[in-house]
């Protein structure tokens, strides 16, 4: 057995406790209870005996929380955390679905969709932060874009035009952030907060002065597109290849930004500015213009995220409809270690918990809705507490670059 420090001890204790509770809980389910049907879309459903399956999960969980103590692997905490999370969530799903169908495919598809604004927000954030500019104004950028995109779509009568304006407005707000942070050397967190406040005021103003008085109050939402051939693949086809356009763009951006960041000239320069702006300056790179560029690009992506809210989900615009997702996106970015793929994983975690909460409400699971609503935010805090390993930002993140 390897040497155990107190942190591991606490985690293993917690994990064992949770899994033991799950095991105990499994005995509370009457043996004659109806089966839970786990729906797998076109493949049909799998019926599982709730008591037995939760028992199995509990035992697996106990094993998973204790076993890493005997490995040499350093990722002890992550492993036991993920195992326990899996068994806990699995148990809840099985329990919630007793006597009915719990659509797993639907759950995953919904998770992907709900993760979209977060992944996009995280990518927007990392585009800025990789050049060393902290951006907590993602919330404000998303909100403004949602409003402007919707307004444009309403007045022009074309949602794609609305989408264009949403992206554009994200970029313009980002320009303000860049101006304040890079040129005026304002504290970047204050500058971000200013933009968030401005966004609330601006969008509220637009909504009350124009939108509420308009004839129509809703536009349609962007259509669901099914990729030919690929969408026929069982399970995966429904989840990955049948989606609205912004979801596809999100997945594309994850791949695209990864390639660009680590294989192009732009990517190398961006990363160098975020690590050591003086070094970049001394080889002739224009730190200021690259920061402006990247912050604007981040703004465009944030604008896309904003459009998701009004044009792809509800077809309307409500006050504060972004609801803190911009900050959750920041947590996803940190969790993902400032890497687009990491951001995707982080976003999926939140999307999943969000989706779970919605499905539980639909299924009338006897947990108060407010508690379920809290879930994504609690998870953000847990993630941020570095439960899952340490996360190092770009070295010069947040430090304004002052030339003599």
């Amino acid at each position, binding site marked *: 057995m390897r040497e155990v420090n107190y942190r591991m001890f606490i985690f293993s204790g917690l994990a064992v406790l949770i899994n033991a509770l799950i095991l105990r809980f499994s005995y509370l389910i009457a043996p004659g209870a109806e089966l839970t049907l786990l729906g797998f879309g076109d493949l049909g459903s799998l019926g599982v005996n709730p008591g037995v399956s939760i028992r199995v999960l509990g035992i697996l969980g106990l094993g998973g929380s204790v076993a890493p103590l005997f490995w040499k692997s350093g990722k002890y905490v992550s492993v036991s955390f993920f195992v326990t999370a899996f068994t806990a969530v699995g148990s809840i799903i099985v329990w919630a679905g007793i006597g009915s169908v719990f659509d797993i495919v639907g759950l995953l598809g919904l998770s992907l969709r709900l993760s979209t604004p977060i992944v996009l927000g995280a990518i927007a954030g990392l585009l800025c932060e990789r050049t060393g500019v*902290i951006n*907590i104004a993602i919330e404000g950028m998303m909100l403004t874009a949602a409003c402007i995109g919707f307004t444009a779509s309403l007045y022009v009568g074309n949602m794609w035009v609305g989408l264009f304006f949403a992206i554009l407005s994200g970029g313009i707000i980002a320009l303000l952030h860049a101006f*304040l942070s890079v040129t*005026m*050397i*304002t*504290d*970047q*967190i*204050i*500058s971000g*907060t*200013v933009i*968030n*406040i*401005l966004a*609330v*005021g*601006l969008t*509220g*103003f637009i909504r*009350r*002065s124009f939108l509420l008085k308009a004839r129509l109050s809703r536009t349609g939402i962007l259509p669901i597109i099914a990729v030919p051939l690929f969408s026929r693949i069982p399970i995966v086809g429904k989840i990955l290849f049948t989606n609205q356009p912004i979801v596809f763009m999100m997945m594309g951006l994850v791949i695209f930004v990864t390639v660009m960041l680590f294989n192009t000239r732009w990517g190398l320069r961006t990363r160098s500015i975020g690590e050591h702006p003086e070094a970049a300056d001394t080889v002739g790179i224009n730190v200021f213009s690259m920061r402006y560029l990247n912050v604007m690009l981040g703004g465009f992506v944030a604008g896309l995220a904003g459009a998701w809210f009004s044009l792809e989900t509800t077809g309307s615009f409500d006050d504060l409809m972004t609801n*803190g997702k911009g*900050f959750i996106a*920041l*947590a996803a970015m*940190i969790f993902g270690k400032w890497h687009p793929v990491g951001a995707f994983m982080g976003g999926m975690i939140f999307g999943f918990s969000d989706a779970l909460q919605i499905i539980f409400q639909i299924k009338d699971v006897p947990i*108060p809705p*407010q*508690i379920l*609503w*809290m879930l994504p*935010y*609690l998870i*953000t*805090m847990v993630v*941020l*507490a*570095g439960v899952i390993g*340490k*996360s*190092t*930002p770009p070295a010069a*993140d*947040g*430090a*304004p670059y*002052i030339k003599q």
Partner: protein
Amino acid sequence: MKLFFEKIRTRVQFQELFIPFLSIATSLIIGAVIIWASGADVYKAYQGLLQGAFGKPRAIAETFVITTPYILSGLAVAFGFKCGLFNIGVEGQLYAGALSAAFIGYAVKGLPHFIHLPFALIGGIVAGSIWGAIPGYLKAKTGGHEVINTIMMNHIMIRLTDYLVKNPMLDQKASIPRTPYILESAYLPKIFPSFRLHWGFVLAICMVFLVYFVLFKTTLGFEIRTVGLNQNAARYAGMNVSRNFVIAMAISGGLAGCAGSGEVLGLNYNLPAAFISGYGFDAIAIALLAKSNPLGIIPSAILWAALRNGAGLMQIRAGISIDMINIIQAFVIMFIAAPRIVRWIYRIKAEKGKAGMILTRGWGK
């Protein structure tokens, strides 16, 4: 006039006071432009604003009613700033205080006034302290940035309050979802019989001086300010940085909790589920405007309260939505936070290199 500007241009101390004034003035000008562009009457609008805030004794009292939580929450944010912490969680901490004060106010029976009221107040302060100390602790132990954690705590507390007020703390006989009314023995009394202004206002002013004393006259304050200015030197001097983070956030949260308690114990006498304060972001503006100096919080809070109070009349007189105030306020914050812009507009020369308040230390430890 030119000579006046020349004087300003060169005297640095003058600048420190004058720039905030210019910031406010410029924001009002921009606001005027937007109002004019949207087709409304600028004169009527600003006249309504001024009258709404200070026109009649009732208006003035009402402005001070709003000033009370503004002072306390502004102090909360400013205190955090002094330790280098950005406490955006004032909203949540305020709710925690309100919840706690309401609970002690209606649930604890049979206490005389001079015990019940302080008990409720202190209960609110402690609740806010705890809610603030948690992100402080997380920052100290894990390096988790307080900006995100406090915002998350806000969301959690809002939903928690909603749940609690609609379920265990619900007054079953009420027509809207709210807690029961607090007992009279827990009331914060009014200062004048005919106005809503209550003794919480005086309490707030006292807190200003208390905070000033703690920050500048005690060893605790010295430590907190040192940690805020240079963590490394603080460590070198033997100060416990983590402990100071937690204490600063606890005090900050306590002040916010006091604001919430004041609202419940002095104004509403209950906590409705629809309780929305929105003081959180305003508090940030007030703290920035006062440059985190406790004494400066008072005029800063009065200004902000005047804007909020007058907005209602402005809307009636000139037909402009209240969001206009938000926009003006956002500009004020922007100019305060980036004094360079104001300097640039009015061509006021600064000492080279002085860039304004820099709080950012990035995300990690």
